[in-house]
């Protein structure tokens, strides 16, 4: 049989959580089991690949026979045998498990640059990366290009920092190159702390070599010989894969002394974070590598002049570095054409929340938010209606329906009261309360504030107290004005980005959803029925069948009733956990 068969199984964090390890194992066992091994083993292989992007349909499996690809969704280990006999042995794909049109619309509007290898190659194998032109750009940069030449290409590509602030990468590198020092550092910021963002994790897990290659090129461009990758401790798989990739690079001679025989040295190490959101801020991150408390320092000079251990340091985000090899290979003009006039290229977003197709997406800058939510995302799940799109995590804001035609780029999102940020996009539907959402983010920034500067330490605490008051029905007239006033002061006077952007979620929801705040304060009502203190659960006697499901599940023992007779909730005992609401099959429980 002269078939060339390749089976690709997603093993990103999302895939693994959905059981991809067992699926891959089952495929491998099936292939090597007696009989099949004899005729197939040489040409049939199953391999792990990085994140496929479409996490909502994990485990995703590609079966490629002679270059002809079929993708299966929601694959479980017990489905492997059928796929194997019907499709792989007999050539007839198992139609009912193949991905449907959602999968295709999810991918249609995407352009994959950074993610082009994610989900296609084995991230733990350097040869797989080399087979797709990996380390070709680094070799070119080190053996036949000058530092200034590389800087110029990056400048012309119009690439801007993907960590969120959008500083032009080429300019940063030029500053780094110009400053003379015997020791300089290149740092990759993989401290992706924004809740709701997982782009960097997916890239580090799915294509770790691209990040390393980008760093090697940056080292050459800025004439640095030492590098660090700072990774969050919460990303164990990313740490493992990067560590493997670095070891493979040292073995292959792509890191270390005299790389590619070019006389250029570059040493690279991983530094694991210890769980502090503020360490995503450049100066705090450097203090953390130095072994100190991760507190930001005033920016009296740029990191490119005085950074890690007071040496010149160029720090970029994971995604920024992962773009570099492609830019060197395909040219600055190719890259800048992909985006808008002001910012070139593509941006990776993680789309999650109440949207049908959740996952990792990459789009050219300039697409509209509506295209992302309704075309790629497939609209709101469960037939509910759209309420807001949260971008930029705790530093960003909520964008309402009427602004969904905003084009995605750094400036237009800022104008809409949010930020591009690192790329988290969380869709909120009618069942989300905007005051509660603002409070959620403020709880986050308040607890993650390092405490160094007063506006952030005390200001966010006061804002949170006001929001707590409002969500528990104790809000009073003047609270909203006070929130705005505090917000503006905190924004203007905080030391670092964390504090300066902390009021954004509150200010943007106040701007677009003020009426919802007013409902909480004046009528003591939560229109979305989320805020616990403002809702009560009750049972509709006419609908209740007396099945007792709610009574059995109630953790507070607050439901009373005789079988087959309508039950009642004792509001004194009720802890408003909502368990009964979810458990009732007859929709007899209401919250108001």
């Amino acid at each position, binding site marked *: 049989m002269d078939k060339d068969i390749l089976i690709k199984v997603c093993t990103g*964090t*999302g895939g*693994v*959580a*959905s059981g991809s390890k067992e699926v891959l194992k089952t495929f491998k066992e099936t292939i090597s089991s007696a009989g099949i091994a004899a005729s197939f083993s040489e040409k049939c292989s199953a391999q792990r690949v990085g994140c496929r992007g*479409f*996490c*909502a349909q*994990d485990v995703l499996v590609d079966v490629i026979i002679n270059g002809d690809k079929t993708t299966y969704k929601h694959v479980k280990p017990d489905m492997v045998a059928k796929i194997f006999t019907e499709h792989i042995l007999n050539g007839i794909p198992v139609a009912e498990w193949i991905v449907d049109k959602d999968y295709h619309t999810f991918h249609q509007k995407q352009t994959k640059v950074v993610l082009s290898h994610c989900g296609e190659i084995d991230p733990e194998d350097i040869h797989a990366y080399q087979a797709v032109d990996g380390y070709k750009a680094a070799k070119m940069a080190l053996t036949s290009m000058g530092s200034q030449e590389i800087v110029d290409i990056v400048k012309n590509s119009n690439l801007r920092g993907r960590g969120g602030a959008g500083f032009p990468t080429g300019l940063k590198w030029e500053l780094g190159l110009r400053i003379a020092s015997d020791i300089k550092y290149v740092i990759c910021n993989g401290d*992706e*702390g*924004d*809740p*709701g*963002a*997982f782009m960097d*994790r*997916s890239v580090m897990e799915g294509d770790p070599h691209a990040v390393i290659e980008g760093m090697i090129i940056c080292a050459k461009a800025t004439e640095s010989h030492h590098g660090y990758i700072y990774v969050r*401790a*919460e*990303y164990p798989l990313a740490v493992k894969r990067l560590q493997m990739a670095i070891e493979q690079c040292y073995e292959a001679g792509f890191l270390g002394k005299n790389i590619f025989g070019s006389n250029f040295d570059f040493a690279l190490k991983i530094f*694991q*974070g*210890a*769980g*502090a*959101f503020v360490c995503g801020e450049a100066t705090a991150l450097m203090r*953390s*590598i*130095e*072994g*100190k*408390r*991760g*507190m930001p320092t005033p920016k009296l000079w740029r990191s490119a002049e005085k950074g890690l251990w007071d040496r010149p340091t160029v720090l970029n985000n994971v995604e920024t570095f992962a773009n570099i090899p492609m830019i060197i290979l395909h040219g600055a003009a190719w890259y800048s054409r992909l985006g808008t006039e002001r910012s070139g290229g593509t941006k990776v977003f*993680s789309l*999650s*929340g*109440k949207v049908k197709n*959740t*996952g*990792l997406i990459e789009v050219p800058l300039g697409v509209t938010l509506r295209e992302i939510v309704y075309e790629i995302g497939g609209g709101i799940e469960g037939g509910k209606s759209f309420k807001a799109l*949260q971008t930029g995590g705790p530093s960003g804001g909520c964008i309402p329906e009427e602004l969904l035609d905003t084009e995605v780029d750094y400036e237009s999102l800022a104008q809409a009261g949010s930020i591009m940020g690192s790329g*988290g996009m*969380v869709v*909120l539907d009618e069942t*989300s309360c905007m005051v509660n*959402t603002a409070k*959620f*983010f403020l709880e*986050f920034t308040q607890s*993650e504030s*390092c405490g160094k500067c007063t506006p952030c330490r005390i200001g966010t605490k006061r804002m949170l107290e006001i929001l707590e008051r409002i969500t528990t029905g104790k809000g009073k007239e003047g609270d909203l004005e006070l929130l705005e006033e505090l917000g503006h002061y905190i924004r203007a006077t905080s030391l670092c980005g964390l504090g300066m952007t902390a009021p954004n979620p509150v200010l943007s929801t106040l701007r677009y959803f003020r009426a919802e705040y007013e409902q909480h304060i004046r009528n003591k009502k939560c229109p979305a029925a989320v805020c616990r203190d403002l809702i009560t659960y009750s049972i509709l006697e006419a609908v209740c069948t007396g099945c007792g499901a709610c009574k059995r599940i109630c*953790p*507070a023992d607050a439901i009373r009733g005789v079988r087959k007779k309508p039950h009642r909730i004792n509001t004194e005992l009720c*802890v408003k*956990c*909502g*368990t009964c609401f*979810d458990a009732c099959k007859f929709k007899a429980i209401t919250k108001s």
Partner: protein
Amino acid sequence: MEEILQKILGEYRKNEGNIISILQDIEKTFGFIPEESVTWFSKKLDIPASRFFGTATFYSQFHLKPRGKNIITVCRGTACHVKGSEKLLNRLFLELDIPLDEETSTDSKFTIEKVNCIGACGIAPVTILNKEVLGKMTLDKLMKEVKKIKARE
């Protein structure tokens, strides 16, 4: 204990580590940062213990008290929040009878932890039971898992 600390010290010297890497090794070995280990390192390296404690209390990865045998982590990222992770968390505290301002049950069998975001937002809400990441969690599923662990204990 001395032996283990000596080994960590060796790693520190070999890899040009720092306070954070020492604390990470201690946490990994003991599951928390025992006070004695800090005083030991403080003397060996002539670094004030306050610098160790200052660093340990700054980062959420370090714990000064021993933790429970089973660790249940609930992701409190944005996507998990809008998909109801707060409900899961509140129910866990009730079920395991842990006061809201504590983390570990009195019998030291369970610790409930919050994590800011583990970046698996596509399959929210997410919980981690003893290092195993479980996606699309529901109250029902979670209670079944907890019962399984309880039965084992």
